[in-house]
C-alpha cells in the first residue's frame, strides 16, 4: 500500500518539472521538425487555416542561401581555429600552474576571471581596444586605439581591425583572440583538475626513468590527461558551433563591421534572424546545425576512443 502511495507522490513531486519540460522541451523537438518540413511555415497563417507544402523545401532554400553559406563558413572557421589554440594554450597553462607552488592560487583566480564576465560586455571592451577613432578611408584617424599603439611601439604597422572598411581576416583575428580569451578559463579548470588527479608517482617514475620535462609532458602527462583533453575538445567544438554572442559583443547585432553587416554572422545568428519571420526556415537551419554538431561529436568520440588511453 505504501508503495502505491509513493507512486503518486513521486509524480506529484515531478509534476512541475514534467509540465514545463513537456511544453518547452519535448514539444519543441517535434514541432521544430514539423515546421522545418512545412514550406515557409507561418504561425499566424497556420492559425488562419492555411496549409503548407510538405517536404524539404526549407532545407533546400537554406542551403542555397549565400548568407547561410557565409554563416556556415564563419562558424566552421572560428571553431576549427579556436578550439585547438585554446586547448593547447589551456594545457600549457594548466601544466605550468600545476608545477608551481608560490602564487599558484592567485594565478588560478586570474585565469578564471574571464569566465564570470558577461561576454557581450567584455566584447565591447575588446571592440574599444581594437578600434580606431575618427578618420575615414582617406583621412588620418584621431586615435588608432591601444592595440595599434602597442603594435606600432613594437615596430609593426597599424591595422584596421574592426572599423569600417576593415578586411575579413582582421575581423576574424580579433574574434579568434576574444573567443580564445573567453574559452580558456573552463579548459584550464578542467585540465588542472585532471592534472591534480594524476598520481604523483607517475611523475616520480618519469624522473627516475630520466625523462626530460618535454618528454614527460608528451609521453606521460598528455596520455594520462587524454580523457580530460577529449572532454574539453568535444565541448569546445559544440560551443564553437554555437558561437554567437562573442560576435555580438564585438560587432553588435549587425554581425559585421560598419559597412559590411552580416559578414561575420554564424549559424546561430542565421537561425535567430529567421525566427521571427520564417520559423520554418529557422527550424531547418537549426536541424542542420544539430546534425553538424552531432556528426562532429561522433567523429570526436570516435577519434578519442582510438586516441584516449585507457
Amino acid at each position, binding site marked *: 500500500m505504501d508503495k502505491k502511495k509513493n507512486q503518486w507522490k513521486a509524480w506529484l513531486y515531478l509534476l512541475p518539472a514534467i509540465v514545463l519540460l513537456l511544453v518547452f522541451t519535448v514539444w519543441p523537438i517535434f514541432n521544430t521538425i514539423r515546421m522545418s518540413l512545412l514550406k515557409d511555415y507561418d504561425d499566424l497563417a497556420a492559425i488562419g487555416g492555411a496549409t503548407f507544402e510538405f517536404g524539404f523545401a526549407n532545407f533546400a532554400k537554406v542551403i542555397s542561401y549565400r548568407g547561410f553559406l557565409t554563416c556556415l563558413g564563419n562558424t566552421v572557421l572560428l571553431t576549427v581555429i579556436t578550439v585547438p589554440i585554446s586547448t593547447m594554450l589551456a594545457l600549457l597553462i594548466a601544466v605550468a600552474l600545476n608545477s608551481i607552488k608560490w602564487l599558484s592560487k592567485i594565478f588560478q583566480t586570474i585565469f578564471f576571471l574571464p569566465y564570470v564576465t558577461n561576454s557581450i560586455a567584455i566584447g565591447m571592451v575588446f571592440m574599444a581596444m581594437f578600434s580606431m577613432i575618427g578618420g575615414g578611408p582617406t583621412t588620418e584617424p584621431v586615435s588608432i586605439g591601444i592595440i595599434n599603439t602597442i603594435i606600432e611601439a613594437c615596430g609593426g604597422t597599424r591595422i584596421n581591425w574592426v572599423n569600417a572598411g576593415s578586411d575579413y581576416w582582421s575581423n576574424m583575428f580579433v574574434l579568434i583572440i576574444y573567443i580564445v580569451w573567453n574559452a580558456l578559463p573552463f579548459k584550464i579548470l578542467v585540465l588542472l583538475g585532471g592534472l591534480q588527479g594524476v*598520481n604523483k*608517482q*607517475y611523475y*616520480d*617514475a618519469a*624522473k*627516475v*626513468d*630520466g*625523462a*626530460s620535462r618535454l*618528454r614527460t609532458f608528451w*609521453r*606521460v602527462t598528455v*596520455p*594520462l590527461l*587524454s580523457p580530460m583533453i577529449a572532454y574539453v575538445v568535444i565541448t569546445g567544438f559544440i560551443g564553437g558551433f554555437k558561437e554567437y554572442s562573442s560576435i555580438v559583443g564585438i560587432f553588435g547585432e549587425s554581425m559585421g563591421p560598419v559597412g559590411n553587416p552580416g559578414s561575420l554572422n554564424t549559424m546561430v545568428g542565421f537561425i535567430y534572424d529567421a525566427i521571427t519571420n520564417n520559423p520554418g526556415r529557422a527550424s531547418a537551419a537549426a536541424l542542420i546545425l544539430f546534425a553538424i554538431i552531432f556528426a562532429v561529436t561522433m567523429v570526436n568520440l570516435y577519434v578519442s576512443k582510438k586516441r584516449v*588511453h*585507457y
Partner: protein
Amino acid sequence: MKVVLEHLTKIFPSRNKKDKNAEVVAVNDFSLEIPDGKLIGLLGPSGCGKSTTLFMISGLQEPTSGRIFFGENDVTKLSPENRGIGLVFQNYALYPHMTVQQNILFPLQNLKGENRLSKEEMLERATKVAKLVQIDEFMDRKPSELSGGQQQRVAIARALVKMPRVLLLDEPLSNLDARLRLQTREEIRRIQRDTQITTIFVTHDQEEAMSISDYIVVMKLGVIMQTGKPQWVYDDPANLFVAKFLGSPPINMLSGKVEGGALYIGNERVLEVPELEDREVYIGIRPEGFLLRANGRLTCKVSGIDVMGRDISVVSTNENSLNPVVRSIISADEIGNAEGDTARFDLKPHKVFLFDKETEERIYFGEQVAAHEKIIAQMKAEGQDYVTHEGPLPREADDRSSSEQPPEEKKGILAKLKGLLPKKREKAADEQPEPVEQPEGQDDKE
C-alpha cells in the same frame, strides 16, 4: 656500488602555519654503509622513515642535511636520473597507457648523448630484462591486463633495464596476495643474485625482510635501531624494540628483577646472573627458549596446546607477563612433563634477553657478552658497521592527528622534535677510541 649515508636527516616543514613546531622529523641523523652487491632490507613499522630514506637515496626527496655517497661519489645534490638508480614503487607506477614493452623501453628512450642506444639495442636489452623477470610473453599487454605479480615484475624490469648501480624497492610485496608474496620474494632474491646489483628494499614485514635480506636495518621514528644479518639481529637484539619487532610468533615479554645475582620473575628464581647488579628489568623470552621440565623454575598456567607436527606450542599465562599469554614452542616429547594445567619451564639462557626498564636497552649477561662481541667482530670482518640506537628516542609515541601528516610522507606519524637530537653511537668494534660522546646526563636535560 656501495652506498654510504652520512648523517641523513629529513625534516618536513610544518603544514600548519600557526604551529611552526609541528614540523616532522622523518629521518633523524641516519648513518649507514651499505656494502656492494648486497640485498638490504629497511625494516620498521609504518612511519619509521624507511620510505623517506629510500626516496632520499633515489633523489626524489632532498635530505634536509647529511650526504649520500655512491661509491666514492657524493650524489646528494644529483637528480634521480643522474644517479643510475632503479626504483620500484609500492604500487608500481607503471604507465597505464603504455604496453609492457613500452614501459620497459621508456627509460632507455630517455638516454641522452653518448649513452644513447640504437633501436635494436634497446629492444634487445628490453627483451633480455623481460626474460630475466619472466614477463617476455606479455610484452604487448597493457598493465591493466596483468596480474599484480606480473605488474610487479614489469616494474622491476623497468627499473633494471637501465642497468642501475643501485636498485631500490619500496614495499615491493605489499600489494600482492600471500601466495604471490612468497613466490615473488624468492624471485627478487634470485634476480638480485643474478645481477649482483646493490639492492635496498623497504618493508614493514619482518618475516619478509628476514627471509631474503643479506642485512637488515631496523628503524623506528627515523632512527636506526639495529643493523646486521637477520639471524644476528634476531639472536642478539640490541634493545627492547628490536626484540619485540622481530620474531614470529613474537617474543614473550615479562616483568622481573635481578636480585642477589639471580633473575626473578615474581618470586621464582629463573636464571643465575651473578655478574649483574640488583635492578628491575624487562625480560624477553623467545618462544623457542622454553624447556618444559617437571621441576622447571618458571610456573605458568596452561590455557591451550597447539600441536604443530614435530613441535608443540603451549599457550599459558603468567601474572608477570606483559602480554596476555606466554607462548612457548617445545619439542613434542617434553609435553609429558606437564602436570594438569600447570607447566613448569626452564629457560635457555641465550634465548632470554634482559632490558633496562628506563632505557629499554639490552643488558648482556653470562655467555651473551661473548656472543655479542663475536657478532660485532664478524660484522667488522664483513665490512659492515654495527649500528644500534641508544638512549631515549626523539619522540616516543607522540600521536599527532593524522591530518597533520606531511604530504610527502603518507606513512603515518613521525617524530616531532626540534633541538632534540638523539644520541646515537656507532660501535665500530675496533680498537680505535670511540667517537667523542656527549657526557651522560645530557639526555635528562633534553
